[in-house]
């Protein structure tokens, strides 16, 4: 085995290069990249060019992708945020599953499939495509909005439902109700166990562990991943899936203050695996089977999408959320998940259905996923277009949970002894203050203070976005890293006053040119002060004694803190 074999494995190379080319084209034509990946698989796979079939490496990377995605979702979930919408989401999820299964049952039955086929199809097409939805919403930075939270909540519950289905199908015995009940109970208990372990560690163990290693970025990343893997193994050994374990691992980590930074480190890894994952969906499609029932599939897709939308809209609206939330929340959930292919695959193996039905399912997944990608991508625009039509749904009783936004605030990047007194001053004079720092030793102290504190590295996009630099009034950045400063200066608005720091004159001049209002040059500040003191010393030492008395006292005082 040569070092070359892994990267140069032709399959892997073709996938990456095709995905890149298609992604560029997608960007130029303003399509979401996800479509590019889906089509990559279709074009290079058995359906068209048949250049590539799935290799083991690709299968591994792909499965890891799903795991990491759910891990990421778990981290995003702040239990506090969810608590408020937990009940409505629970109700929506259960009712949605029932209603959608019914709808999913009616359609194939009406199209003439057998009872068994209909049963399998119904069970398969109920699920929303978690990866697609999460990815698109995350790209649009909408994950923390209310409709998205509702959607993700429902999707998670659906995933648990899915696992139960998988367990049932795999056990091979669908006919005995006692068996079904037993499996069901087992799965629920397992999930309960893992959840408890995860949340308990989140409260007692994780904060301590992560605090100690947070300033070492390698360790931080490694611990996060290890945690995920431990849970995945745990979950697999209990007969549950990779995804459940990963999600619950993420859930535990999501509750500690370091989660933003962890997310940022895991995200690119997830993106990498997910690209492979999406590209390989197309690889598993069989061209013949795909087209056997294409007319039925198109019809069914159309009906399903409209039906799903209406069901979700009704359910969310019923919980007294605003029409906007109901609309967007429903619009996001109109597709058939790629999981349908997984479940379908198992059903074929167990002999419940034949390959042509799988082709029918695949076609539905493909069509609905592609169409809904556009719907999700343009959900805000679509809403605005039909806003007036929804007026009849408005009601005083309906309101959304408020999400606070930052404006005219102050942002402090980096926190050390220099900045501490300045932060007090700023905190007094500004309504909103955000402090960003990646030194874990300060975390506890800082999270207790009155301002908003984000633990993380400012170079990471999500953290920069969260600090809303363009709306800030004052930015103080004492990290002398030119990369950080340049990024920061490109993010600010015209009204923002910026204090930056540099280690040499050329950098300082550059920062001024880029828009900084004052650049702290440490050596010059203390050099000037020291020179001044020396002059006084030479003139009259006693005068200097007086002059520096205060400063010396402050040093003593602060050193004892």
């Amino acid at each position, binding site marked *: 085995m*040569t*070092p070359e074999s892994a990267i140069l494995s032709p399959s892997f190379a073709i996938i990456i290069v095709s995905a890149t080319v298609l992604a560029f084209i997608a960007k130029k034509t303003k399509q979401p990249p996800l479509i590019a990946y889906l089509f990559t698989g279709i074009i290079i796979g058995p359906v068209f060019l048949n250049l590539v079939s799935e290799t083991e490496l690709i299968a591994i990377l792909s499965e890891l992708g799903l795991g990491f995605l759910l891990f990421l979702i778990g981290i995003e979930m702040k239990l506090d945020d969810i608590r408020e919408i937990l009940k409505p989401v629970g109700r929506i999820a259960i009712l949605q599953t029932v209603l959608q299964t019914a709808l999913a049952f009616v359609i194939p039955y009406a199209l003439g499939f057998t009872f068994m086929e209909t049963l399998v199809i119904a069970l398969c097409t109920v699920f929303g495509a978690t990866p697609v939805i999460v990815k698109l919403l995350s790209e649009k930075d909408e994950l923390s909005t209310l409709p998205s939270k509702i959607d993700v909540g429902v999707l998670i519950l659906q995933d648990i439902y899915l696992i139960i289905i998988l367990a049932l199908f795999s056990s091979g015995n669908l006919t005995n109700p006692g068996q079904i009940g037993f499996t069901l109970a087992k799965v629920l208990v397992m999930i309960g166990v893992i959840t408890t372990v995860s949340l308990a560690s989140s409260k007692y163990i994780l904060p301590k562990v992560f605090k100690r290693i947070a300033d070492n970025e390698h360790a931080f990343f490694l611990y996060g991943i*290890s945690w995920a893997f431990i849970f995945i193994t745990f979950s*697999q050994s209990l007969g549950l899936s990779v995804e459940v374990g990963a999600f619950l691992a993420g859930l535990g980590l999501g509750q500690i203050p370091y989660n933003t930074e962890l997310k940022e480190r895991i995200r690119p890894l997830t993106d*990498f695996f997910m690209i492979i994952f999406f590209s390989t969906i197309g690889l598993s499609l069989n061209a013949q089977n795909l087209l056997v029932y294409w007319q039925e599939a198109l019809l069914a897709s159309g009906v399903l999408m409209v039906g799903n939308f209406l069901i979700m809209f009704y359910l969310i609206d019923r919980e007294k959320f605003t029409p906007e939330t109901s609309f967007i929340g429903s619009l996001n959930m109109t597709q058939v998940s790629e999981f349908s292919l997984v479940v379908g695959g198992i059903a074929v193996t167990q002999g419940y259905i034949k390959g042509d039905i799988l082709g029918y399912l695949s076609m539905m997944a493909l069509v609905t996923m592609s169409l809904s990608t556009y719907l999700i991508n343009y959900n805000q625009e679509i809403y605005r277009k039909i806003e007036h039509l929804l007026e009849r749904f408005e009601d005083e009783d309906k309101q959304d949970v408020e999400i606070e936004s930052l404006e005219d605030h102050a942002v402090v990047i980096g926190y050390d002894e220099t900045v501490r007194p300045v932060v007090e001053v700023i905190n007094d004079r500004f309504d909103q203050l955000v402090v960003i720092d990646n030194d874990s030793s300060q975390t506890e102290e800082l999270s207790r203070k009155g301002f908003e504190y984000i633990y993380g590295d400012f*170079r990471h996009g999500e953290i920069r976005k969260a600090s809303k630099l363009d709306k800030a009034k004052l930015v103080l950045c004492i990290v002398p890293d030119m990369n950080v400063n340049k*990024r920061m200066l490109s993010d600010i608005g015209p009204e923002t006053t910026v204090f930056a720091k540099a280690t040499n004159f050329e950098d300082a001049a550059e920062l001024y040119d880029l828009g900084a209002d*004052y650049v702290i040059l440490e050596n010059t*500040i203390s*050099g000037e002060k020291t020179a001044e003191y020396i002059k006084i010393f030479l003139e009259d030492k006693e005068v200097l004694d007086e002059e520096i008395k205060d400063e010396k006292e402050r040093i003593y005082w602060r050193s004892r803190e």
Partner: protein
Amino acid sequence: MSELITTLTVLFGVTSLALAAAKKFNQPVIPTYILAGIIAGLFIEESQILELAQLGIAFLVFVFGLKFDPERLKSVAKESQAATTMQVAVVGVSSYVTAVFLGFTSLDAIYFSIAASLSSSLIGLDLIEREVQLDLIHGRLAESIHLIQDIIALVMATILINQVLTPASILTSLAYASAIVIFALVARKWIYPFVIKQAEGSTEIVMLTGLTLLISYALVAENLGVSIIVGSFAAGLTAAKFPYNSEMIDTLGPVKDFFSIIFFTALGALLNFPTIEVFMTSFVLVVFTNVIKPGVTVVPLLQQGYDSRTSYLTGFSIDQVSEFALIIAIQGYTLGRISNTMFESIILATTASMIISAYTSRNKDLLYEKFSALQVLDSTDRKIEEKRSIEDGIKDHIIVVGYDIQGKNIAENLNEIDQSFVVIENDPERILELQKREENYIYGDVMHDEVWQKARADKAQLIVSTVPLIQISRKILDLETEAEKMLRSENIEEAAELMDQGAYYVSVEDILSSEVITEHVIGVIKDPSYRDELRRKNLLEVRRYIEEEEG
């Protein structure tokens, strides 16, 4: 699939524990991974992770290429050209001969001497980051040595991929490798900026572009018979243009971390229980790396005129085996060219040397004290006579330690009021400046008593230090003189301690800065026009400083 998951879980779990232990003892990361791999290797099958590990190599070298700054190389390389060349030549040849003497084949011996003579930029630079930041001379020297040796490593990787080592095959592969690298540099200047602009705003496409670069170069390299190591490097080099590379480093960084952890632990897992041979060979290699190599580096540096402290500290910063040597070794291993004994010895030796190097780096000042007490290779005395310029009979003067921006500022002010002073410096460049301005100076190591004698510390009225290192502050406080001492410190506790021990005043960066910043922040909040005035004034001053430096 679940086997792989279990394997990875064991791997990551063991590595996490190892890392926790390592952090307690302040050990560096890479040897920890290898050791974790050794432990994990008892429980897992290496074959499971080898494919993933190889991705690790590619990504490691790719990111190395991404961060590579060809312009910086030019300016930094000059500092240590002579010393590095001599060191590599001497250590390279002597280690080769030793290996042959120990009974290894010629080819094995080449691998041995690569491991012995090249030091690691990954670890090495981490250890001296602070010194480079403070622009201390030995930091610059060490950085320079590392960069040059990285290039040498790439060249060796290219040569060794050949099946048969004839002059013809070597030249061919070198030619192809150079072609690839040159292409990369050209693409970096002309093609890449255009491509990456298309991807702007989408981190995914940036990542995909990086992956495509990596794969494309790897394919070309393989087809031309060039090592994939050079291919990955060239791929990274193509994208190594700030600010484009930072986004790619951000996105592919974690991917590289993931796979490179697997790589290093896999190396550990591949180790069998060391035989006597392996043990002996490793030991010899470690001796070369941690004793002979630094020793050989110190001599030319001293010759060039650097003071002994600088020379020794530089030596202590380069006493490790390069991770490139590991990569080259595993390339040899998978091609079946290197014997198992040599392969395992290199891994073992690398682990040991990196651990030792972390120790020497942290304690280099202490070690230097011990060395200079032994009077080994010490030549300061002789140098100092020639390297000073100070008025006879100077007294009531001010001694300024360090001629950086601060020191210059102070000197300027003192000249304005006609106050006599002496500057102590150990950086040859700054001494040149002092000579040009005809100031009083002593070129030497602040920690040596002779330097203070020459500076007439006993007759001075004030000693001002601009260097925030605690050992220098302590040394000054120990001096036998009536002079008042103004020191500098980086943190408040230290400052308080120094004042308790007799310092007249200690300037703490942080306190002075916060005062100034607070003043300006309040000013900006109160009065909108303050902002423009502030900017204008300070920008002018900065420009003035720059002009002065150039002039």
